[in-house]
């Protein structure tokens, strides 16, 4: 599985010394300071890659550093997305009256605690597939016959369970996919690809509370020791449609409480998605006003050009 085309550094990794932590500092997980129905703050900006048709960058608020320890526990999500196309179908492809959408997710080698290679692994393929199905539910494909569009998401920093330190999984994976969907939607809108609605994704979860389990929106894996069940939805707010759903864990054995059944779990994920959608909408409106201000300046700059219509 070695990549022969690039210089990848030594194959045998050197591991830094890990010292035994004192009793007080072993518990590195932070407590959630937000309200259960409060999302992490989202930074989103469109038009960041000039060569792409549309692009966006998304970053989640990083949790406050509790105390400086050996392990840097402030892990957050940083995603960049670029949309290329519409462009002609590849030579081998057959005729298609619809837009052919393909999405891919790639981790930067430095995205997670454990450095990884350039070869696409199963996690990336899995997230890419889910992202593709979600986005296929929102674009209007018959507006672009005979053309293809490529959506590439690069994970610059993947929120992973730093205590385990290994691979991304569980609720970190859900948060990552939700971020991928949100950043792709912003980039698609920036590329002016026809869409039915502003797709947004959110994650809801059921966590054990002091008395009984309760629901939280946008759970960060580092803030919760145990997550009983979690759910991700891709949601079209104006039509009240779900285009992507992925859930994990079991809620059926949590008692007869109506509030934390599967419906409640999906409802909390939808609420998180609605929260993210307001951010995407604000950012797109803001980018429109910004480009319009830029466009008004342009004719004055071009006044010294030679007039060709003589």
């Amino acid at each position, binding site marked *: 599985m070695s990549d022969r085309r690039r210089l990848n550094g030594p194959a045998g990794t050197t591991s830094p010394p890990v010292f035994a932590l004192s009793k007080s500092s072993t518990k590195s997980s932070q407590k959630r300071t937000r309200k259960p129905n409060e999302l992490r703050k989202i930074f989103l900006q469109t038009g960041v890659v000039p060569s792409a048709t549309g692009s966006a960058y998304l970053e989640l608020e990083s949790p406050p550093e509790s105390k400086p320890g050996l392990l840097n526990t402030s892990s957050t999500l940083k995603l960049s997305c670029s949309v290329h196309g519409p462009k002609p179908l590849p030579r081998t492809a057959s005729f298609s009256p619809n837009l052919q959408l393909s999405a891919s997710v790639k981790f930067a080698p430095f995205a997670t605690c454990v450095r990884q290679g350039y070869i696409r692994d199963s996690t990336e393929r899995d997230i890419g597939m889910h992202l593709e199905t979600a986005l296929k539910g929102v674009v209007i494909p018959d507006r672009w016959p005979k053309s293809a569009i490529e959506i590439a998401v690069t994970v610059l920093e993947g929120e992973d369970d730093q205590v385990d330190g290994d691979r991304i999984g569980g609720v970190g994976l859900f948060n990552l996919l939700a971020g991928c969907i949100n950043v792709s939607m912003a980039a698609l809108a920036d590329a002016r690809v*026809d869409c039915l609605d502003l797709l947004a994704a959110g994650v809801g979860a059921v966590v054990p509370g002091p008395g009984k389990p309760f629901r939280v929106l946008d759970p960060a894996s580092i803030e919760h020791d145990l997550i009983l069940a979690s759910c991700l939805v891709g949601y079209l707010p104006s039509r009240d449609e779900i285009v992507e759903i992925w859930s994990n864990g079991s809620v059926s054995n949590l008692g007869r409480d109506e509030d934390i059944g599967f419906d409640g779990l999906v409802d909390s994920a939808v609420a998180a998605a609605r929260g993210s959608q307001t951010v995407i909408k604000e950012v797109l409106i803001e980018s429109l*006003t910004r480009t319009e201000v830029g466009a008004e300046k342009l004719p004055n700059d071009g006044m010294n050009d030679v007039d060709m219509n003589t």
Partner: protein
Amino acid sequence: MASTLVVPGQILGSTSSHQPGPGTHVYENNILASIIGRSVVLRTDKQSSKPVISVPRPGTNPTGIKSASSLPNVGSTVLCRITRVQQRQVAASILVVDPSPQDVTSYTRLTDDDMQFQAVLRREDVRTHEKDKVVINDMYRVGDIIRASVISLGDERNYYISTAGNDFGVVVATSDAGNAMVPASWKEMRDVVTGQAESRKVAKPA
């Protein structure tokens, strides 16, 4: 002319009072935006038809209803670069769709031919008269920029274009010596430096 900033999924009006234009779609008797931009309501000349709501893309003319996207359509004017000249047909890649006179941009942001839509100009579509006497090599050379109209969306690969008509043909060409050429007649262009004439099917200058 009401104009507001809209995002996809935003309701712009009802189908009972308006017609959907480019950049919109219809869902449950409502007209919704499908791209971001400013919504524009255009009243049609005819009294009977309803006003059209559209969300124009940047760079497209808001009054040009047919240009719903930047893809070539049947009837749209395109600027192409000739990539291959054969006995029976010419291959070209489409650079600009529906160019407007105030377009001050370069021909394209793309430089890779694989990224551009490909087009085929068949020998019988070169001009309207004496179609059987057309010699392609006297009409177009590789590298010429031509103005043409799209006559068919074609097969899986190519669009079909035509240069039949006075307005269509070569607009930019270089001579064998590598100098720019200027039109001399409808079938001839001249090198600006050497004065050497070369035969081309020339588009009527605007």
